[in-house]
């Protein structure tokens, strides 16, 4: 039975509503087999497996960043919750740095054919976070929550994977898969039009798509990364703005009009004090990264100029 039935937007005790993102209709899938074998395992199955783990991990990262940023505006955010989410983000980022997926994506985009302006923040984030000798605050075992047999979904790649030596099943992906499979992007406190416009892909995708995802989907990662830069960077990487024909700004404005940019600053979050300057989204990850060195050599200077453009977009979006 789908875990989606048990997930309901909780409003009791001031819980904050969260986004439910349809990950697999147009998700952040990517294939690493084209990327110089950075993530290539022995077989195509292996690559698919690690892709789908990376996918899940990415979605968890996105979800966490959203949670940090979209806090209740009137009441001081819950510090314990913020700290726990921030720690989760750090864990994911450290792991991604460790297993090279940070670097892999960096290289793919820096050398890619897409214009740099469309790679903006994702690139910047990846470039700046990558360090050759990252601190070993890492988890050597990439293991997952125990997956109960009864909950195995049809798609085996999601459920019976071990990317490392861990014997336990990939229930993270399984449960995330459940989370996302029929969800539609719903923006809290926004009007119907926005919800409609922000639906990810066909609204009634179901499990069937998951089966096909690893085989014949295009490189969704690139597409979503394009959205990354448009939709304020890493955080919103999984959003696809369907009605963005008039450019990114208007749709985003609609989508995030009530989001206070000052909460992008994690430090702000933790101290509960609103700070005036708006920070670029890459700064959020920056403040989280325990160690981020200088940008890797692979990051060209066009990253920098694109940052200014991003800043500009941010200014427009938050209506300053």
């Amino acid at each position, binding site marked *: 039975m789908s*875990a989606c039935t048990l997930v309901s937007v909780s409003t*009791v005790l001031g819980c904050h509503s969260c986004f439910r993102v349809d990950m697999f209709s147009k998700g952040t899938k990517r294939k690493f087999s084209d990327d110089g074998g950075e993530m290539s395992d022995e077989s195509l199955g292996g690559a698919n497996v690690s892709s789908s783990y990376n996918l899940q991990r990415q979605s968890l990262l996105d979800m966490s960043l959203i949670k940090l940023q979209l806090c209740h505006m009137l009441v001081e955010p819950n510090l314990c919750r913020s700290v726990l989410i921030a720690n989760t983000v750090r864990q994911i980022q450290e792991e991604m740095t460790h297993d090279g997926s940070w670097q892999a994506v960096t290289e793919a985009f820096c050398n890619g054919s897409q214009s740099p302006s469309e790679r903006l923040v994702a690139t910047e984030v990846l470039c700046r976070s990558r360090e050759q000798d990252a601190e070993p605050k890492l988890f050597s075992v990439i293991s997952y929550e125990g997956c109960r047999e009864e*909950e195995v979904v049809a798609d085996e790649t999601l459920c019976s994977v071990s990317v490392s030596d861990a014997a336990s099943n990939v229930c993270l992906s399984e449960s995330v898969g459940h989370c996302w499979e029929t969800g539609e992007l719903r923006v809290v406190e926004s009007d119907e039009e926005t919800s409609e416009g922000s639906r990810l892909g066909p609204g009634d995708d179901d499990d069937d798509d998951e089966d096909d995802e690893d085989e014949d989907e295009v490189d969704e990662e690139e597409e979503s990364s394009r959205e990354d830069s448009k939709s304020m960077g890493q955080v919103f990487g999984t959003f696809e703005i369907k009605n963005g024909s008039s450019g990114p700004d208007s749709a985003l404005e609609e989508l995030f009009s009530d989001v206070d940019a000052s909460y992008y600053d994690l430090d702000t979050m933790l101290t509960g004090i609103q700070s005036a300057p708006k920070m670029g989204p890459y700064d959020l990850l920056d403040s989280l990264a325990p160690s981020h060195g200088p940008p890797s050599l692979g990051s060209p200077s066009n990253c920098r100029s694109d940052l200014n453009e991003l800043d500009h977009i941010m200014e427009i979006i938050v209506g300053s």
Partner: protein
Amino acid sequence: GSSKLNSMFTSVSPKADIISTVEFNHSGELLATGDKGGRVVIFQQDTENKSLPQCRSEYNVYSTFQSHEPEFDYLKSLEIEEKINKIRWLPQKNAAQFLLSTNDKTIKLWKISERDKRPEGYNLKEEDGRCRDSTTITTLRVPVFRPMDLMVEASPRRVFANAHTYHINSISVNSDNETYLSADDLRVNLWHLEITDRSFNIVDIKPANMEELTEVITAAEFHPHQCNTFVYSSSKGTIRMCDMRASALCDKHSKLFEEPEDPSNRSFFSEIISSISDVKFSHSGRYMMTRDYLSVKIWDLNMENRPVETYQVHEYLRSKLCSLYENDCIFDKFECCWNGNDSVVMTGSYNNFFRMLERTQRRDITLEASRESSKARQVLKPRRVCAGGKRKKDEISVDSLDFNKKILHTAWHPQENIIAVATTNNLYIFQEKVN
């Protein structure tokens, strides 16, 4: 046999605000609840039939008062919620009762006193308070006390304010009956009950740079007998015991209780579910109990490296952690409590389920607090959750659980087998059936 709970179903009106704390006083005669609207409602045990062996206790409303009001912090442009986070009773010293109630920022000491007589026969004023015309007074009389309908008054005696930058999560009265502690996310302060304009900071875990913050204080409590000892728990699943005699600032713990992580269960959610939501000493003072998201652990105060007992509350949720993270339920803070003789512990769960865990015989039972299942005098039926596979009759499957119906607050009468269980809007009081 296992104790059966004869449900003496009592509930507050459905219009009541969300209950945020429940606490029996030291005798168990009074039961206080705090709610999201800043109100405190106190129930009193009906002692009429106590002598009878088959007595059923009823709890009736004794006093209701507004403890905290919403405030606005102009400096930060933020509201300060009036929600009552904790209530703690003081041991009774005289006819009046005293309790501490706290919201996120301010602790208040309330005096609850009864008045069942009133003076009558004043010379200079009428019974209704109007002044008498002095020219009409021809005789003098001595006012006397006459019985009146019982009136229960609650008056604020102390307000302990401006000592917490972060949200208060715990208060605990010391066994010396003179001091108490209050804990927020990063600090623990020590107060004297008589002194409101200053408190003593005894724990401070705030880092110099807030960006380095990775751990917060989640609960704190004084030892029930040793007035120099207290513990505080953290979001990383550790408990630190401190001795106030050792140093003024108790940043250095005297004991650190932590169980090593099980590497096979590691996930991105491991830390979150290890965060301790409640810590309670046993009445004996030899043990303490902690509640994290999925389990209850009992610690021997002499053994720091692992708990002596671990009970799974709702292990079937382990595979649902991502969903629970998404809907924020993973951050729910469940409380736990001991029974009078420390043989049973109790904690809440979802779907209005609560769990009673018997220590010596290692038995456990899941019960439900709902109107349908709690008709008066009916024995509560045990519930079972089907984690997967074929669902047996009477079992409920994990996916059918209602995660909006959570029981975060429970309390156990200090002497009798009477429990108070708070669902979102209702208070249930259950009593063991005496055969």
